[in-house]
């Protein structure tokens, strides 16, 4: 094994360690934030923002999406589009019901 390859892997391990520590800290921050005196909307927003940051860390570094081929990125973007449509359906239904009332 070349020393360059070795150094490359060591730098990857360092990144994984940082990501792991960040995820652990953000988990504690999520729990701590739930004890803050926030409105329901603010709590939901904050919790989802932290979860999204944590999710992005896992996807980008543990799942290597940051350096993955464009083909995979396109598949995931398409999936994300359908996912948001799925999320929008209950919202649309709720808005529709509110208008009927």
């Amino acid at each position, binding site marked *: 094994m070349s020393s360059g390859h070795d150094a490359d892997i060591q730098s990857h391990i360092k990144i*994984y360690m940082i990501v792991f520590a960040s995820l652990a800290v953000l*988990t504690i921050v*999520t729990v701590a934030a*739930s004890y803050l005196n926030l409105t329901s909307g603010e709590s939901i927003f904050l919790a989802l923002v932290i979860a999204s940051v*944590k999710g992005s860390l*896992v996807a980008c570094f543990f799942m290597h999406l940051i350096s993955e081929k464009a083909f995979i990125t396109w598949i995931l973007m*398409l*999936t994300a589009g359908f*996912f948001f449509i799925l*999320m929008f359906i209950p919202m649309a239904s709720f808005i529709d019901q509110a208008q009927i009332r």
Partner: protein
Amino acid sequence: MEIPYTVDERPDTGIYNAKLGIWLFLASEVMLFGGLFSAYVFLRLGAPVGAFHEWGQELNVPLATLNTLILISSSMTMVMSWVSLKMNDFKKFKLYMALTLLCALCFLVIKYLEYSAKIHHHIYPSTNTFYAIYFTLTGLHGLHIIGGMVVLFYLWVPGSNMWNTKPEQFTNRIEIVGLYWHFVDLVWIFLFPILYLL
């Protein structure tokens, strides 16, 4: 017959076939959990104001926090098992795989304790809409953990013989199961706040 593109990248996709396969599978998993997340939003909006938060007060936040930390740790050990193979260190690979399985087992034991406490307090999926979606989401996630453990165990013990004959293909297999495992972790990262904290 030799299966093509298990190690080499396909010229048109730029990746080996198993990686494309797992990403397509994960895309379908996003839609599966997406449907249930959508149901969660629907039920939450349909419940009386503040009811979901109130019903969720029965859940054990410290245990769920511990479970989150355990699952994050398992993601770390999973990626380290793959790195170990990249460094040709089979012994370390075995160790990290064992740690990943141990974390998964701890997660399930804690989940069992949580479920037992709920059932002991006569809380079932039929109790209210919150517990209906709580048991559905965490139950499905738990099944994913069990499924992942079966594959991890296979690759840890009997399947690891492939390292001696086709080391590159075996390393790719570990990367693939790792992608699945990180996805299961990612789902929990969202389940934890929406079920336990909000």
